[in-house]
């Protein structure tokens, strides 16, 4: 009996604290979950968030879209996640645009998770991701002796764009790495790129709020932790109910005897 009382006490102690900690997130998950379940009926996938500060938090640098100038051409990545050559849309590119370089007849646009090979007329030749051998996350792109080189994990790797091999580390010291500095996209080109306010739907926002992705990787980890806390609440609640029920069943027997 004493052990059971101590166990119930301990469960109560933690159940209350965990409950208070998880309460806000439980309500948030419930509300966003219900809304997501009916997003199509509510039109949340077709209506867009008109909060510029939030778009900027998503990596939309609309007020100062970073771009790289390659001769007379400009490469930029708009807030819709697509890379543009001047005002021509090329393809989606995963992650922030970290650099661009010309390699032979091709232009290379390096995003943190993807490398795009583009012709000078704006056609996508190929896209390379971690699944196809790219070292990620990319930190920068440059050229060493006219050969494309990628920076990932703090090291520079030479890119073989025919064999799609990126496993040769650039020799440390002595090599000159040429890199382009990001610049401001000229206004006449920016004006032709679609406005960024038509991409962040309410459904996307709710999804990211529900999963914690709105706050990056830490947000996802936190929501995972909240899910574990909610599961522990269910477990401790059930355990306390069971222990309490057992006690109620035992007490009349003691009185009768």
């Amino acid at each position: 009996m004493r052990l059971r009382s101590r166990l119930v006490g301990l469960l109560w102690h933690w159940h209350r604290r965990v409950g208070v900690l998880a309460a806000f997130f439980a309500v948030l998950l419930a509300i966003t979950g219900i809304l997501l379940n009916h997003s199509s009926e509510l039109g949340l996938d077709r209506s867009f968030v008109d909060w510029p500060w939030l778009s900027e938090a998503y990596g939309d640098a609309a007020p100062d879209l970073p771009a790289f100038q390659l001769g007379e051409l400009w490469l930029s990545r708009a807030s819709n996640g697509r890379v543009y050559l001047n005002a021509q849309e090329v393809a989606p590119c995963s992650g922030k645009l970290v650099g661009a370089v010309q390699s032979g007849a091709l232009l290379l646009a390096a995003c943190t998770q993807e490398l795009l090979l583009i012709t000078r007329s704006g056609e996508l030749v190929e896209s390379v991701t971690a699944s196809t051998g790219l070292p990620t996350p990319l930190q920068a792109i440059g050229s060493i002796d006219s050969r494309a080189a990628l920076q990932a994990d703090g090291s520079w790797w030479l890119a073989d764009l025919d064999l799609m091999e990126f496993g040769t580390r650039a020799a440390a010291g002595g090599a000159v790495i040429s890199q382009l500095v990001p610049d401001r996209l000229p206004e006449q080109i920016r004006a032709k790129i679609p406005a960024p306010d038509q991409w962040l739907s309410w459904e996307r926002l709710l999804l990211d709020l529900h999963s914690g992705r709105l706050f990056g990787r830490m947000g996802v980890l936190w929501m995972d932790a909240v899910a574990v806390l909610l599961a522990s609440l269910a477990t401790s609640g059930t355990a306390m109910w069971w222990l309490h029920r057992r006690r109620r069943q035992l007490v009349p027997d003691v009185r009768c005897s």
Partner: protein
Amino acid sequence: MAAARTSRRLWRAALAAIVLMAACSASGEEYLGRDEFLVLAFGDKPPQMHTLWLTEETRTAAKAAVGWVPVALRLRYWQDGDRTAWILEDIGRDQPITLGIAVSDQRIERVEVLAFRESRGWEIRYPFFTSQFAGLTLAPDGYLSEHVDGITGATLSVRAVERVARLALWLDAQVRS
């Protein structure tokens, strides 16, 4: 005192479990690398990589045959006799899905999801879905020879896998002819 000590230990254990579970569950979106897929498709010694340029003529023919062609001008594939393997991308809802398709003797041998970037529909990576493609061929109408059961909530991702599978079969026929 003993209860407080037990309580502290429990709290630490719970915290460690939360951190561990969170770290495990938040693993990346890349499920399988290129080399791992090739080992699954060809065994320990994958063949050399080949390049297929999608000319305007090829693009038009692919679109007419299977109704879809990727934006990229250049595709990579691996071939060993009657078996080819393709790594292709298609957009499900907003983000590209990277798929590895192995074709043998004009039949799909294996479908693997290499990377999935959408926030919904990731269930397509599991064998209960991908194993349905094994043995399917390209029907004369450009569709797969048999129906593939969808997944509730992952309709667009399922359609993307079907499109890519059809294209892989068509491309396989082109490079082997």
